[in-house]
């Protein structure tokens, strides 16, 4: 076991897979010589050469489109899009091509591309470096959508994503790259050093796609969340004193319905939380599913905590971000209802 932050864990997943499988290649902007603007591919080009770690032109559509072609020709590409906010020029390639290739060719063609991209706010990035567009991708049939909340899961899930014959969009909440975050930007940054999930095996292991995990067991209310907000939920459970069961969804699509519904059937209450905007968000899908499966067990309407339905404002980052206050209010609100 080693101590790793999320960046090191992601880097390690690349390294393990590139050693294990010579068909794994990496491409993206600044990923090669420089090692990525967040250092997630640091040293990989030196180790595996320029034919396996490719500095790409600034063309997200080109990166994803050529990754699809490489995948069709037997490689297993891992494409980095420097910020999730910049993924849209590649959107047609993801939606119309990558997601449907297997389906439209009757299973004859597929392309096992993994697209990694840092997402989320809390880093003072304004509207072009803070978005959480996961729901847009969960809406597309044929794409697996993943977002880890800690280094251990990040490495294990990324290895699973790379090994998956289905395309995966892998969101990395950049606010927690270097340490967990309880929602208070005034506090000094905490590192993954002392966090149990900062302990990461150096070699190969997987965290399976499509499995949620109970991060904190509890009896009074189920909080279903993922990414940075897992840590906000933990802080809110402590702040409110409510015995919350916190579920980290980890894979948004395909969704592990059973873990979610078993928990809500037990607690009878449910709060859904994500950083992305609320309207038409992933929480709406979760709400519909929980409502259908757990209707007679619910003691209160399902609550939602999410980003406001505006672009991510630079000046009001902490009023926009669904932090401790909103999470706690969300918990209390669901708890108060009969």
């Amino acid at each position: 076991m080693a101590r790793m932050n999320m960046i090191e864990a992601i880097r390690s997943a690349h390294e393990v897979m590139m050693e294990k499988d010579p068909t794994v290649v990496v491409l993206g902007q600044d990923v090669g010589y420089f090692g990525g603007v967040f250092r997630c591919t640091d040293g990989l080009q030196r180790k595996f050469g320029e034919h396996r770690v490719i500095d790409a032109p600034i063309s997200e559509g080109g990166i994803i489109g050529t990754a699809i072609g490489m995948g069709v020709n037997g490689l297993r590409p891992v494409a980095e899009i420097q910020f999730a906010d910049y993924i849209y020029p590649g959107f047609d390639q993801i939606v119309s091509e990558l997601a449907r290739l297997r389906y439209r060719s009757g299973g004859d063609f597929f392309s096992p591309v993994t697209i990694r991209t840092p997402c989320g706010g809390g880093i003072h990035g304004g509207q072009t470096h803070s978005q959480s567009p996961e729901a847009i991708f969960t809406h597309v049939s044929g794409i697996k959508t993943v977002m880890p909340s800690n280094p251990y899961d990040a490495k294990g899930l990324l290895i699973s994503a790379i090994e998956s014959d289905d395309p995966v969009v892998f969101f990395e909440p950049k606010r927690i790259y270097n340490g967990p975050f309880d929602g208070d930007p005034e506090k000094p940054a905490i590192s993954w050093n002392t966090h149990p999930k900062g302990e990461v095996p150096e070699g190969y292991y997987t965290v399976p796609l499509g499995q949620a995990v109970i991060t904190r067991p509890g009896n009074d209310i189920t909080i279903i969340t993922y990414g940075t907000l897992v840590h906000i939920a933990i802080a809110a459970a402590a702040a409110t004193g409510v015995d919350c069961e916190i579920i980290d969804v980890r894979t948004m699509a395909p969704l592990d319905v059973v873990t979610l519904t078993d928990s809500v059937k037990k607690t009878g209450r449910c709060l859904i939380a994500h950083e992305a905007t609320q309207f038409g968000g992933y929480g709406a899908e979760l709400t519909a599913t929980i409502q259908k499966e757990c209707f007679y067990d619910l003691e209160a309407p399902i609550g939602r905590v999410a980003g406001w339905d505006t672009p991510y404002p630079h000046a009001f980052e902490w009023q926009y971000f669904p932090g401790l206050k909103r999470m706690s209010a969300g918990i209390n609100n669901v708890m108060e209802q009969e």
Partner: protein
Amino acid sequence: MTTKSRLHIPQPNARPGDKPDFSYLNLAPAGSADKPGTDARTRDIEFLSSGLVRVLDDDHVAKGPWNPDFDATQLQVGLRWMLLNRVFDERMWQIQRQGRISFYMQATGEEAVSIAQGMALRPGDMCFPSYRNQGLFMYRGVKLVDMMCQCLSNTRDMCQGRQLPIMYHSKSGNVFSISGNLGTQYPHAVGWAMASAIKGEDHIAATWVGDGSTAEADFHHALTFAAVYQAPVILNIVNNQWAISTFQGTAGGERRPFAARGLGLGIPGIRVDGNDLLAVYAVTTWAAERARHGRGPTLIELVTYRGGAHSTSDDPSKYRPKDEWAAFPLGDPIERLKQHMISQGSWSEKKHEQLTTELKKEVKAAWKEAQQYGTMTEGPWLNPATMFDDVFANQPRNLETQCHRMLEIESGD
């Protein structure tokens, strides 16, 4: 002999620790490029895309058919605004390093692009800038204090706190809102220019993109539309050699110059010394005249060098030699114009020093004023309720509800 396909991996000539090597830059002596009429056919002027239009030679003498014959006042205007751009950038960089703004991007070494092109365009022409065109905003009359307030996201911020620092706009100055996403402004400029032609006006559009961002599909969309409809637009590629850590070869600049990107579509290209204010002014005036006379788009490649880091989040010493800028054969645009003016007798080191001091004072005063409208740590503050404005023309119900909720939470309710 058997041959196997092998990827070509573009390699910069120099990485950290290496001696800077710009031997790949195809240079030409100042004054050597012919200046065709603006009615020339693209096929007859292809040489302009592979050569290099230069007016100022290595001894700072202006020569050749592209010399715009600036008088002393015009020269001083050019110098003043370039110097202001530099002084402003230096101060704002410092301010970011002190933690007083969240982010900044300098145009160090590229000032001639914005200033010369700003001078060559008419006020009614619309600019669609990239993020390193702050000089355009300055030249087009945006006050320094307003630019600083934008960087501070304070109560006088033109973007109302919604954008990262440097993502300016100026409705009255005809400069479009900077996006942050790369190359997206290129088709906007073409569309704006098409509208100008549809409306029968003689305003033209101009837009800027970096060498790296020419790889974006939007660049190619824009060229196609501009060529098909012969839109009155100037398409500028600022080739500053580096796109964060990747050099211009990674964007495809190794075999043909970026100026040649439009030739296949019949768009004439001009490759110009981007650090020569006079040459940049001359080619831009030429392209503007073509556009205004219904002769369509021109693609201009401005050969320059990104003298500083990509942004305050970047450390270029990790991927390029520290002394690379000093070795750049086209030098520093400010120093070159200054030396030209001195050799002409209209300028002196002393005057230059005075001007620098004056501009520093101006910038310092603007910063003092800007802080009165709020800083990151001191009020006055924008009302957070404004974050729900302008999502739509009229606020829909869900945003109204969320706004109330946000205010309740912020007030501890």
